[in-house]
């Protein structure tokens, strides 16, 4: 599949790959929240938008992620984005630009709809970037380390965080597998004459039934087999574990954190100034 979906990890060697997972997770969270750091008009100002897009673009280049695959993924995401766009377009009050009957389209609506698409694209790009540069094992390790202080407060939290990190790791690990499976089963049904590319939406939805049943069946079977395999190898979610590699913050991580904080402050500053 020629898409770069969140969940795809490639063990390349880039600056971003070598960063500490905690820094990357914190950074990803920051970059996902920043587009929501809006002024009074519920949308970020132009300057902060440009800064954030430029910063994420630099990160994409640094990560050596396939840019064409990423663009293709965003194009797919746009299908979802369009619904949001039109929702905001028609429901945001403001000075009407065009008015046809009862439907009014305002400049504010246009901007609000655009903002949603921008946020969605950024969300997908940043999460794809995080999983592209961080292996599921690193992610889990980082998450455990970040949540560890909570565990010192009371015991159930610690057990919960361990179970949660494992659930998350496994879920991420199977996103690409599931997509491969969907593609394979689509082709198998196509070979039996299912018209997957039919222009009629009704026809298209009808072709989903032959896809979903086998995919659910195989997902459940896979989950069951995985659980048994884990148990057979002595897995207990409540066990306390040590790690082969200890997470150690380096000068590089410090630099990256400083850059992230600087970008965050710059954007908040720009928003404040634009108000």
């Amino acid at each position, binding site marked *: *599949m*020629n898409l*770069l979906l969140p969940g795809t990890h*490639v063990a*390349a060697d880039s600056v971003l790959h070598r960063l500490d997972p905690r820094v990357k997770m914190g950074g990803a969270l920051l970059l996902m929240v920043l587009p929501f750091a809006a002024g009074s008009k519920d949308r970020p100002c132009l300057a902060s938008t440009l800064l954030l897009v430029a910063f994420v673009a630099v990160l994409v280049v640094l990560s*050596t992620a*396939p840019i*064409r*695959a990423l663009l293709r993924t965003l194009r797919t995401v746009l299908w979802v984005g369009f619904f949001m766009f039109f929702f905001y377009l028609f429901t945001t009050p403001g000075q009407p630009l065009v008015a046809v009957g009862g439907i009014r389209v305002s400049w504010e609506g246009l901007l609000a709809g655009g903002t949603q698409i921008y946020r969605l694209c950024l969300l997908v790009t940043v999460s794809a970037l995080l999983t592209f540069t961080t292996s599921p094992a690193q992610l889990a390790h980082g998450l455990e380390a970040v949540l560890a202080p909570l565990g010192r407060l009371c015991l159930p939290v610690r057990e919960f965080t361990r179970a949660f990190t494992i659930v998350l790791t496994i879920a991420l690990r199977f996103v690409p597998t599931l997509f491969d499976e969907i593609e*394979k*089963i689509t*082709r*198998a*049904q*196509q*070979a*039996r*004459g*299912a*018209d997957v*590319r039919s222009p009629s939406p009704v026809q298209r939805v009808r072709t989903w*039934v*032959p*896809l*979903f*049943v*086998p995919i659910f*069946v*195989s997902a459940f079977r896979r989950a069951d087999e995985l659980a048994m395999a884990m148990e057979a190898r002595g897995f207990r979610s409540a066990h306390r574990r040590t790690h082969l590699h200890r997470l150690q913050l380096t000068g590089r991580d410090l630099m990256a954190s400083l850059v992230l904080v600087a970008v965050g402050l710059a954007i908040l500053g720009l928003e404040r100034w634009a108000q």
Partner: protein
Amino acid sequence: MLIRVEGLTYTYAAGTPLERAALRGVSLDIRAGERVGILGPTGSGKSTLVQHVAGLLKPTAGRVWLGDVVAHARTRAARARRRQVGLAFQYPEDQTFERTVFREVAFGPRNLGLDEAEVLARVRWALGMVGLDTTRVMGRVPFTLSGGELRRVALAGVLAMRPEVLILDEPTAGLDPRGRRELLAQVRTWQEETGMTLLLVSHDLAELPRVVERAVVLAGGGVVADGPVRQVLSDGEALRVAGLDVPPTVALLRALRTAGWSVRTDRLLPEEAAAEIAEARDILHSIADDGGGHP
């Protein structure tokens, strides 16, 4: 219809770090009614090749012709041609989805737009061809069948479309030796009854000569051997290049030859090998009788 594969190249995930060439410039012609076995180690591009023949993948370079149309084209003519190519994927039972066996097998024929009487006739015929008791299984829920039975139902689903070209991607994978032999014998019967072109991807070197007449060996995305099945399977060098072992019969005959027996090594089936060895033994005996004067 003539299947012509011309310089077929296919790259998975082109332009990403996961890029991998599955086929590199494969060319083949397959005549109507021919029975072709496709062999090769895992990752040699067998499945990718047959999916191109079914028009399910768009080549990165090169072309696949089904008669006079390009296999993956989006024209009406190409779609009609593709419907004459039946492909059963590996582990086809994983792709079943209907509530009853009847509906499962009828899925293909219904997509062909046939009327219900014809659909029913085809389902009965196809289930009979795969050796299932039609009246017993038609109303069953597919998931209540055994793995082997479900595999047969899935294959019946492809047969029921009455394809001109039947492609089976490792139909015997995961079956026990007896199940393999039976299934391959059935495949042979289907081909004889319908005269369709058969492309069989298989690792069953010992059984393959019973079903196909020609063998194509793939390795690393290219064709390393293509010819009559006897010739290809007794050619140790081509199989070694592809990372495959010669069939056990050929291995035995070769060992005998090395030990000084004058036997031919292209006897692939057990009974042929046995006859060859018996003949060589008789010759040895008669020489011994003539020369030594033993009783």
